[in-house]
Every structure is written in structure tokens, then in C-alpha cells.
């Protein structure tokens, strides 16, 4: 089975691969005077970039500039046309399923962090099956398995068991778990996983160190290289992102773009997508240093859409229903719906606290109605495990 997934790593690509690492690529391309670029860009420069069919990384600061924010309608029109052309009038739906909420890390901003006195639990095999059945009964076909970040409490073997259960009820399975080794990703892929979601949180190493006080997550590079290890193992799709609010959001988005670009050039067969979560109120009470307004948030999303026409944009229920609705035509291609972030939330088998507070508590039916009202079709299935 492993052979099938390694098929893509043909000698041709191995030879072509550059020796440069993701971190080196991002740093080499981020040696820019961002503040000057963000503030001195002219409308003519902006129009020039919007006229182009292919946009390079060096153009991105122009789309992230102050003048671009003042002319956000221009960005929106281009992003709308691109999304329509490449994705059509459809929005894909998925839902998260939390198997556990144990964590070994001390992330200042997260409700699941180890020192937070919250109810911790892990679903056993029968509870997990019940949860999977309850979620699939709602019509969800694309599931995102989350476990919290504790390798001790939820080892790879446990995750494989979860995937073995999920594949009986869902057509596509993604994981959002602690970073794994390449062979462990391969084992999960062989079990039926086709997508990985992993967020670097922030690409600013100084801020990263400050935000992640303890635990394995302190290893910036191990996390940064996780998507690459999953690609090497044969993953089909990778969702990446930065948690907006931890550091300068424009710089983080620029470096996220560099990271995606690096991986795209190395693994052209992988479907990449991104997510731009904003920090929401937590049990831990963390308040972000950088406030990302709806307007800035929209600019960041539009800039990435224009830069990466065929890259998917995922939007979780962290954002409220109105904003989610408004962004459907502007680039969002995949939305979570009817989400529960508590362990056991769907089958109500002894709930715990959620990782974050949900802004859009609409039911799946309500989300579908909203999508339809916007003139788009909700699509539950866009892949099936082979």
C-alpha cells in the first residue's frame, strides 16, 4: 500500500527538488521592507498587478498594501471572477470531529492548553463510533478529525483506529493533529486519510517562541516542516494557515504564501488550501496583540485568492454567519457547517469544553440555505477514498 503513495515521489521529482528548506525559502523571500511596501504602493502599481494573469510573490505586498485596502472593491472583483472561473458556483462542506482534547502544550492563546483546568476526555472506540454515526447522519461526507495535541494520550495508533472507523461513514477524511513523522503520516494515509490540516500559527519565530511556552510545539521547525513530511508520505491535500492576531497579520500572510509556494513547486500534484483563523475568546482569557478587523481580514483573504487562483479557501465557524455568507462569492470554497468543537459534541456522549467559541451556530440545513440563497450549490462530497 505504501508503494502506491510513494508512487508520486518519482526519481524525476527527487532530482528536481532543490536542497533549500522551507524555512530558508521563506526567509530568503521575506527579506523585504514590508512597512515601506505596504505604505508607499501607488494605485497605478496596484492596477498593474491586478491586470496580470499570473502573480508572483514579489507582487503580494502590493495586494497587502494600504492603497489596496482603500481599493478593496478592485481586489474583490478580481477574486470573485477567479473563484467563479476555477471553482464554479459551488461551496464544499465539511465538519470537524473532536476525538480528544488532551494537550501537552502551553499555547498562550488556546483553550485546550495543558495548564487550563477544563474537562479532558478521549472518546473510546464505541463512543467514537457513536460520534461518527451521529455526524454522518447529518449528511456530512467530508470529516476533519481533531485530537488535541497529546502524543501520549492520543498516539498514532489511536488515530489509525479512529480513521478505520471514520472510513465506514465518510468519503473523505482529513486530520488536524500534532505534527507526525513521515512514516506515521504514511500509516494514516494507508488507513484512509487524504487530507492534512496544520497551522503554523505564526511565522514570526520570536513571537512563536513567546506564544508557545512549553511542550513539543515549541519546536518551530518541526511544525513548519510537517506539511512537507505529509507530502512526502503521499497526502492528497494540505490545508495551511496562520492564526491571525498573534503577530503582524500581513507579514504572516506573506510568509504563509511563501510556504505554500515552496510546497507547490516541490509537490505539484498536491491540492493546497488555506485557512485564516482569527483569534477568538478563549477560556484562558488571551486577548490578541493585533486586532484583525473584518475589512483587513477580507483583504488578506482576497490577496491570497488572487495570488493562488486554484488554491482552496476554508472557512470555519469561528467566523459569524453574516461574514461567512458575504465571503462566499469572494473566494471561500469550503466551509464547516453544524460544527461542534466539544469532544462527543454530536452524539452528546458526555461533552467537554470546546477549543474555541463558535460564532456561527447555524445548523447544516441553515448553512445550505444560505449558500443556495447566494446562488451557489452546497456540495457535501468532493472526493472518496479509493
Amino acid at each position, binding site marked *: 500500500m505504501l508503494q502506491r503513495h510513494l508512487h*508520486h515521489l518519482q526519481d524525476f521529482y527527487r532530482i528536481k527538488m532543490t536542497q533549500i528548506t522551507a524555512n530558508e525559502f521563506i526567509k530568503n523571500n521575506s527579506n523585504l521592507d514590508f512597512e515601506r511596501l505596504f505604505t508607499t504602493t501607488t494605485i497605478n502599481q496596484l492596477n498593474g498587478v491586478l491586470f496580470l494573469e499570473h502573480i508572483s510573490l514579489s507582487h503580494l505586498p502590493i495586494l497587502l498594501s494600504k492603497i489596496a485596502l482603500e481599493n478593496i472593491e478592485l481586489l474583490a472583483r478580481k477574486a470573485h471572477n477567479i473563484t467563479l*472561473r476555477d471553482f464554479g*458556483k459551488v461551496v464544499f462542506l465539511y465538519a470537524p470531529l473532536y476525538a480528544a482534547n488532551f494537550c501537552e502544550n502551553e499555547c498562550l492563546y488556546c483553550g485546550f492548553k495543558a495548564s487550563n483546568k477544563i474537562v479532558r476526555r478521549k472518546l473510546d472506540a464505541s463512543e467514537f463510533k457513536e460520534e461518527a454515526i451521529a455526524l454522518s447522519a447529518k*449528511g456530512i*461526507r467530508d470529516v476533519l478529525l481533531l485530537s488535541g495535541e497529546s502524543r501520549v494520550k492520543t498516539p498514532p495508533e489511536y488515530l489509525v483506529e479512529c480513521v478505520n472507523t471514520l472510513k465506514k461513514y465518510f468519503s473523505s477524511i482529513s486530520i488536524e493533529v500534532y505534527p507526525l513523522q513521515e512514516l506515521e503520516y504514511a500509516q494514516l494515509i494507508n488507513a484512509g486519510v487524504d487530507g492534512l490540516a496544520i497551522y503554523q500559527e505564526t511565522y514570526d519565530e520570536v513571537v512563536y517562541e513567546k506564544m508557545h511556552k512549553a511542550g513539543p510545539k515549541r519546536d518551530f521547525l518541526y511544525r513548519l516542516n510537517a506539511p512537507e513530511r505529509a507530502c512526502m508520505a503521499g497526502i492528497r491535500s494540505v490545508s495551511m494557515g496562520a492564526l491571525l492576531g498573534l503577530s503582524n497579520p500581513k507579514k504572516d500572510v506573506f510568509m504563509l504564501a511563501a510556504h505554500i509556494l515552496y510546497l507547490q513547486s516541490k509537490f505539484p500534484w498536491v*491540492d493546497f488550501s488555506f485557512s485564516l483563523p482569527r483569534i477568538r475568546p478563549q477560556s484562558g482569557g488571551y486577548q490578541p496583540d493585533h486586532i484583525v478587523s473584518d475589512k483587513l481580514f477580507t483583504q488578506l483573504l482576497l490577496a491570497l485568492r488572487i495570488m493562488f487562483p486554484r488554491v482552496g479557501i476554508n472557512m470555519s465557524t469561528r467566523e459569524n454567519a453574516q461574514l461567512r455568507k458575504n465571503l462566499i462569492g469572494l473566494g471561500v470554497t469550503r466551509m464547516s457547517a453544524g460544527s461542534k468543537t466539544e469532544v462527543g459534541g454530536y452524539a452528546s456522549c458526555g461533552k467537554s469544553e470546546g477549543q474555541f467559541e463558535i460564532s456561527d451556530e447555524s445548523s447544516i440545513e441553515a448553512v445550505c440555505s444560505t449558500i443556495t440563497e447566494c*446562488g451557489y450549490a452546497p456540495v*457535501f*462530497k*468532493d472526493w472518496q477514498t479509493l
Partner: protein
Amino acid sequence: MDDFLLIGGKKISNRFFLGTGKFSSNELMRKAIEESKVEVVTVALRRVDGGGKNENILDFIPKRCIIMSNTSGARNADEAVRIARIAKAAGMGNWVKIEVISDAKYLLPDNFETIKATEILAKEGFVVMPYFNPDLMDARRLRDAGAATVMPLGSPIGTNKGLKTKEIIQIIVNEINLPVVVDAGIGRPSQAAEAMELGCAAVLANTAVALAQDPVKTAVAFSLGVQAGRYAFVAGIAQEKNVAEASSPLTGFLQD
């Protein structure tokens, strides 16, 4: 005009084929198929959602249509073959459009993997219709591998740019004794007519219809465009010339 296209033992009178993705609703897609009298539709297995509470795209396709399952999402021959087999087992018939994309950025087809999948599936009895980057040698390889048609792209998928690969498609039409179906990039009925005037056997489109302001009318327009182009080809349209040509004979002085 008694002019049928024969593929896999089936007679097809409407040479406009329709893709079923990107529509804002399954119902709208159904109307577009009905009104345009399309006979051949492609359906991606990845979108078929049977057995649950969700809409199943197959329920919106008229029974008279020939379904060509589409291996969309396959990154290599192995995945394309698996998808085709699953689609057949799911009752989608044995017509398959092989679409192998190993570059998610440009979505250009991978000819090498497509040829491999064609050979395997043709041997298994599938009616194989490979989507590929137009290239004469690869068209020959597809033919020799057992393809029922070859389906070169007119321009990159979804771009509506028309027949950017016209010169190569004309060569393929001239040299390959198989129906040539132009697939991808056709944005207007006039471009579809142009492909048919070259001698192509059919045209397949999706984006141009699904994203039109009125997809139903646009599907009808494409159907008519394809028909007009076909009629013109059969009738033998006049060639384009770069200079005016005298209508009086230039060799009238020759007596015998």
C-alpha cells in the same frame, strides 16, 4: 441530415457533450441537459453522493443520457483505473473520461499517466475517452492503447479562451482515425462551431455553460453551434484565402 457519431457501438446525434460540475444547482443542470437535448454527459465519481440524505447528482440526469464517468481527482494511472472501476461498479456504465492531473496549479492533463490508464481500462472493456494535452505522438499512443476517442484540450480548462491549440488539433484530426472530441477551454458557441469545422467529432464543455448568466439558453446555443459547425464541415466549407482570387480563369487561353 442522417449524421450519427458512433462511439462504443452507440449512435449519438447531438455532438455537444456537457460536463456536470460548477452548476449552481443540480436542477439547473438538469434543465440545461433537457433543453439542449444533450445525449452525452460527464459525471465525476468524486461528486456522486448516493445512499445518504444529500442530493445525488445522478438523479438529475435524464435516463436517455449516456453517462461518461470522469476520473477527476486522479493524480496517476493507478488512481484513474481505481476510480473507473468504482464508477462502473456503482452503475455508471463503462464509458470513462480519463482525466489525470498531476499539477494542481495549472490543471493540465498528464499524458504519460493517461496513456497507461487507457491501456489498462481498454483491455478491461471500458469505452475509454482520454482527455489529454494535444500532441500527435501521444494521440497515436492513445489510439494504439485502445482509446475509443481522443479528447485534446482547446485551451487550459475553465479559461474560455477557445481553440488555442487549433493547429495541433487539426493535425490530430487529419492523422488519427478516431473521433476527436475537443474538451476544455471552449468558451463560446462560435468556438465550438470552429472546432467542428476543423473536422472534430464533438465538443465537450462545462464552465462556459455552468457559469453563463443563463446556463439553459447557453447549453442550447452550444448545441446549435456544434450542429452548425458539423453541417459546415460535412458540406465542405470554402477555404480562407489571404488574397483575392480572380473569378475569370487565368488559363482560359489554353485551347486543349
